């Protein structure tokens, strides 16, 4: 069938070939990073930019891993991401539930003030945030970064989840209520199970955003043993920026976790990105 369609429409064949060329150019930077990471330093100079390595320098990866201190920073990033993402989504889903299903005095005002935060550049608050976390004695601690991360995640998540919860029929709550369910029971047994696709989409989006976050981490995690992956990558550039082959190995390893999550859960990813912004 597919072949027939492609054969019958020359415009589509041209389009397909054009797309293929564009897609290869588009991901060329990633391929170029990987290619460089596979070269030895003499190879880099001898083979030129596009030349293939004469021998594959796998040792770049463990060496870069050690220099960038990735065993520590990967663990930090994983701990922070896997604490922040479920906690943040839980807190946001509770609020979205209250705002769509329960009686909240001034509910619309609350919602407006909360979702306004989704658009505000976090850099506006970086210095005061540093002051606040310093004052609370939470600098260089997981809690100290988790709280601002959750706070700045709440607006977008509440925005998206209120939109989704509104689409769940109210008759379901009422049926559960007649069966004697409490508000918590309705949240847990009716809303959450039905919202799983939206929650999965948020999980993927938020994991990527948390893994990639740089600005807040830069001011709050100042001690090297607390750094996340983006901070160690930035430091690597500063310290060993001339060691091109290992630098590229470090870049490559730092982006692998999000690429894996993205490729595995792509379906949810696109759903999450679009459901909030463009209403069907």
């Amino acid at each position, binding site marked *: 069938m597919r072949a027939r369609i492609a054969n019958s429409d020359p415009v589509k064949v041209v389009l397909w070939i054009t797309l293929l060329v564009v897609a290869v150019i588009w991901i060329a930077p990633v391929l170029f*990073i990987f290619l460089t990471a596979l070269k030895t330093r003499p190879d880099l100079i001898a083979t030129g930019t596009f030349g293939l390595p004469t021998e594959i320098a796998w040792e770049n990866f463990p060496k870069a891993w050690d220099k960038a201190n990735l065993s520590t920073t990967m663990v930090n990033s994983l701990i922070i991401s896997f604490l922040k993402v479920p906690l943040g989504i839980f807190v946001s889903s509770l609020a979205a539930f209250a705002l769509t299903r329960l009686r909240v005095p001034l509910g619309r005002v609350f919602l407006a003030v909360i979702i306004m935060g989704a658009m505000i550049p976090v850099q506006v608050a970086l210095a*005061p945030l540093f002051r606040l976390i310093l004052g609370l004695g939470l600098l260089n601690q997981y809690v100290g970064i988790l709280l601002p991360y959750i706070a700045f995640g*709440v607006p977008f998540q509440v925005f998206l989840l209120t939109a989704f919860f509104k689409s769940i029929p109210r008759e379901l709550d009422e049926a559960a209520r*007649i069966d004697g369910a409490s508000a918590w029971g309705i*949240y847990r047994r009716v809303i959450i199970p039905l919202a799983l696709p939206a929650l999965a989409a948020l999980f993927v989006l938020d994991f990527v955003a948390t893994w990639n976050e740089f600005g807040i981490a830069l001011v709050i995690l100042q001690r090297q043993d607390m750094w996340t992956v983006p901070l160690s990558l930035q430091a690597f550039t500063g310290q060993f920026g001339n060691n091109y082959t290992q630098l590229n190995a470090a870049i490559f390893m730092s*982006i692998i976790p999000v690429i894996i999550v993205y490729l595995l859960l792509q379906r949810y990813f696109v759903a999450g990105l*679009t459901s909030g912004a463009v209403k069907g």
Partner: protein
Amino acid sequence: MTRPATIPPPTSRPPTWRGTTLGRLTSWPFLVPAVVIYALFALYPMIDGLWLSFFDWDGVSADRHWVGLENYIQIFTQDPVFWRAVENSLIWVGLSLIIPTTVGLAFAVALDQKLRGRNAFRAALYLPAIIAAIAVATMWTWMYNPIFGMVNATLEALGLAWLIQDWLGNPDIALYSIFVAYAWQATGAAMVLFLAGLQNVPVELKEAARVDGANHRQVFRAVTFPSLMPTFIVVTVLSIISSLKVFDLVYGMTLGGPAQSTQVLALWSYTQSFQLHNYGNGMAVAMVLLVITLVIVIPYYAWMGRRDEV
């Protein structure tokens, strides 16, 4: 909200908690965690920033005194870097409304066709959007490397050696070089939004136009394009906002240099507060950025609210 009065609720719980006193009581435990965390760690820092923009302070010492609007007057009248940052942020916004959006629309229109391997194409074209901005910065710094970088090597291979540059070292073009990396990363978001918008174009209208003898291009101009209007508004606003947020890329590639030629508002605020110990001025710059953002965001939310009610 009708319920048969004859059916007693199975528990002693009052029959309706919605709209009753109990309703009010049950809503706050759900709301409190998010509201408290948001108020304390997102809203409060912004208010604190506003407050401290009226003080002369180095950010560390106990010596801090009220100067009123002095910091604002200073950045507006005596800070050429501030104006450079404003100009660069405006250039950035302008370019971002043209380049990543057009490319994203083109990708979306192409991927909206039934094609073999469509998902693989979409995954590839969206890939840059999920990479950390700081990693993109490092990658493109390497791409722009004058000796080994892919950009110059490609130009040479294409016989365009006369275009070879020190892309990040030349103050006249460094901003645009960073922007290319940004466009590479920002196109994915526009593409996904346009793809979603294209799903909402009424199929019947397209078919009706075809029946009336319209060709591909005419259908696009007369049917598809007008139906995409809401998506254009969303993409425009999100492009402006994400341009104003640019920080990691510039931090990672040039730190605002050479000679402040790539300075942008978000980074200049950070640099003033953390590096130059001019906390009051840093906060004044942050507040300018905040006001610009609100001027764009408030009408946008008003528009979205109206659309939701229809």
